[in-house]
């Protein structure tokens, strides 16, 4: 328990703070004590001077009586010897007072009680000795009072210090225990996550303090981690499931070829079929690797400022004839667009996939429209619309999943990764992608965020022929 307390950060901070406070308190006490003492000393001196002059004034010309009386009455008023008096004649004979001897030096001096012929062991006196006529008058006062006041000051400061330390230790223990409990909750959660329970989250108390911030951040990280792991698991299952079918087919084809070979028949067609099947499997792998690479975000390092309009124009030139051969019409309408910070190859592939999807899945007679509109010159949207058969509402979210195919029989070509790739590329660029009903047909909209790269309006159709 003590060890745990000592190891807790709040307690250590508290201890450090209280030590610093005590040091300041000590320093302050020392200074206050010194000041009070100096003040009391000055007052004592003043009082002694006054007493001396009052007694001295009572001395008439050659008449000792009043003087001796005053000394004696003063002495009688101080039986406890806080004040001492001594009057000696010209021959040093004692004429009166409550002490019998004193140092002979005139003026101010500090003496011990013993030097004044007193028994009080360690008391110190401040005395003033001066001549009154031919006589010597000594007045003195004990330091007792001064020291008593000083010790009261020191004592009260000391008591305050002790009380403070006790309070600090108690508060430290309370705060440390509370902080420790929250730390323990974080540590326990992390231990759970370490054991593989990715659903564990740190309870957040809404104190809006640093620990809460930290907890929230860790929870976010865990959320994302859990999502990635789940995605990974899902993908592994999908791949295993989806590759089994073509691998099976390949295996049958090869088996067929072996049997045909044994029967002395030509196997060329079967081998070609096998080759085509391996090509398909390889393409699926390629696409999966590409998606994984894009999702890792490493490509962002290669982003450059670029214009989207020329990309769309090149794609239009490339696919207009393809659509025409299919009995479809491809149109383009591009407004001037701001530059974006991105990857040209990937953006080309994104739009190409959308156009190819439309060409492949729409019947002859369909019109496929590419368009790009910029709102207030900053945010812009590229859309590919068709008036083909569209995607049923219920399926619209699923088409972005890896290996998802609308055509359950899988008789049309494709690996079910095109839209996953589109989504990955869009997300890499911070763009959002939406599927909507074009009544009839499908409308795919890719909305690009405001980018700080977009400072100048790009020329719409800059000639960028790579050849």
């Amino acid at each position, binding site marked *: 328990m003590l060890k745990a307390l000592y190891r807790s950060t709040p307690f250590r901070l508290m201890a450090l703070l209280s030590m610093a406070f005590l040091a300041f308190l000590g320093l302050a006490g020392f200074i206050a004590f010194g000041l009070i003492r100096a003040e009391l000393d000055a007052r004592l001196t003043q009082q002694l001077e006054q007493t001396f002059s009052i007694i001295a004034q009572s001395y008439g010309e050659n008449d000792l009586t009043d003087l001796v009386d005053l000394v004696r009455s003063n002495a009688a008023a101080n039986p406890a010897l806080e004040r001492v008096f001594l009057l000696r004649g010209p021959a040093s004979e004692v004429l009166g007072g409550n002490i019998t001897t004193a140092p002979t030096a005139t003026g101010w001096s500090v003496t011990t009680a013993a030097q004044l012929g007193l028994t009080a062991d360690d008391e110190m006196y401040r005395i003033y000795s001066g001549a009154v006529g031919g006589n010597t008058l000594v007045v003195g006062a004990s330091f007792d009072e001064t020291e008593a006041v000083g010790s009261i000051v020191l004592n009260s400061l000391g008591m305050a210090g002790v009380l403070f330390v006790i309070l600090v230790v108690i508060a430290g223990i309370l705060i440390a225990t509370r902080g420790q409990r929250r730390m323990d909750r974080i540590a326990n959660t992390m231990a759970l996550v370490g054991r593989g329970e990715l659903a564990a989250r740190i309870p957040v108390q809404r104190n809006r303090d640093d620990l809460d911030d930290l907890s929230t951040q860790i929870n976010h990280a865990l959320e994302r981690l859990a999502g990635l792991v789940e995605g990974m698991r899902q993908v592994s299952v999908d791949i295993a499931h989806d590759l089994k079918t073509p691998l099976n087919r390949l295996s049958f084809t090869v088996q067929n070829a072996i049997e045909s070979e044994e029967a002395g028949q030509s196997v060329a067609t079967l081998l070609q079929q096998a080759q085509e099947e*391996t090509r398909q499997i*390889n*393409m699926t792998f*390629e696409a999966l*690797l*590409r998606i994984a*690479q894009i999702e890792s975000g*490493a*490509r962002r390092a*290669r982003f450059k400022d670029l214009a989207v309009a020329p990309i769309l124009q*090149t794609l239009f*030139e*490339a*696919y207009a*004839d*393809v659509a025409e*051969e299919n009995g479809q019409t491809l149109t383009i309408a591009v407004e001037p667009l701001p530059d974006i910070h991105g*990857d*040209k*190859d*990937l953006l*080309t*592939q994104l739009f*190409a996939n959308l156009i*190819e999807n439309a*060409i*492949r899945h729409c019947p002859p007679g369909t019109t496929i429209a590419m368009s790009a509109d910029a709102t207030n010159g900053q945010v812009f949207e590229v859309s590919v619309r068709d008036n083909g058969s569209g995607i049923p509402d219920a399926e619209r979210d699923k088409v972005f999943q890896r290996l998802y195919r609308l055509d359950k029989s899988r008789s049309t*070509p*494709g690996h079910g990764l*095109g839209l996953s790739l589109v989504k990955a590329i869009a997300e890499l660029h911070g763009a959002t992608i939406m599927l909507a009903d074009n009544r009839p047909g499908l409308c795919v909209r890719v909305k690009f965020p405001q980018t700080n790269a977009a400072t100048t309006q790009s020329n719409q159709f800059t000639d960028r*022929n*790579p*050849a």
Partner: protein
Amino acid sequence: MRILFVEDDARTAEYVNRGLTEAGHVTDVIRDGRDGLVQAMNERFDVMVIDRMLPGLDGLSLVKALRASGNTTPVLFLTAVGGVDDRVDGLEAGGDDYLVKPFAFSELLARLNALARRPPAQTEKIKLQVGDLEIDLVRHSCRRGSVAIDLLPREFSLLTYLMQNENRVLTRTMLLERVWDFHFDPQTSVVETHISRLRAKIDKPFDRPLLHTIRNTGYSLHA
């Protein structure tokens, strides 16, 4: 031509070596990156094929070292991962072309032919001619015999690339990369469509076809 092939996988090396030998080339096969660099510096080759992942010294460092020594022999990288990043890394390191495994041998051969043919610091010709087909690169004009042919800009790029590689086979992928700057495998017949449009203009109205389809590989322009 003489080809250096640095590849650690024995089966790939053997398969490629056999193919290249059959095509009439002389191939040095090296298994280790460090040995490959020594060989590349000491001997003269027309073209080199270098795998990205090699024991001893990786392909990227090999080519960087080679280029730093002033060697300009064309290099084609082979890689198992076809990410665009890898392609860019390879080209930035001094590679001239890039091929993703698994590849068709015909694709490799076509690319090697195109690479080796490219003379160092080539000065662009103004006019190209194949048979009676002629294009003017400055005026962007095309004629066959006495007939002027009107081509769209992209058709002109396509034809230029084919004419620059007269008698060589250009694959679909090579055309996509060079003419459209597309670095992905389209799911539709982009290349076929454009080739057929081009053919309708330069071959159809004439007696003898110049643009030939090479089955399972690509296209070739020759008289």
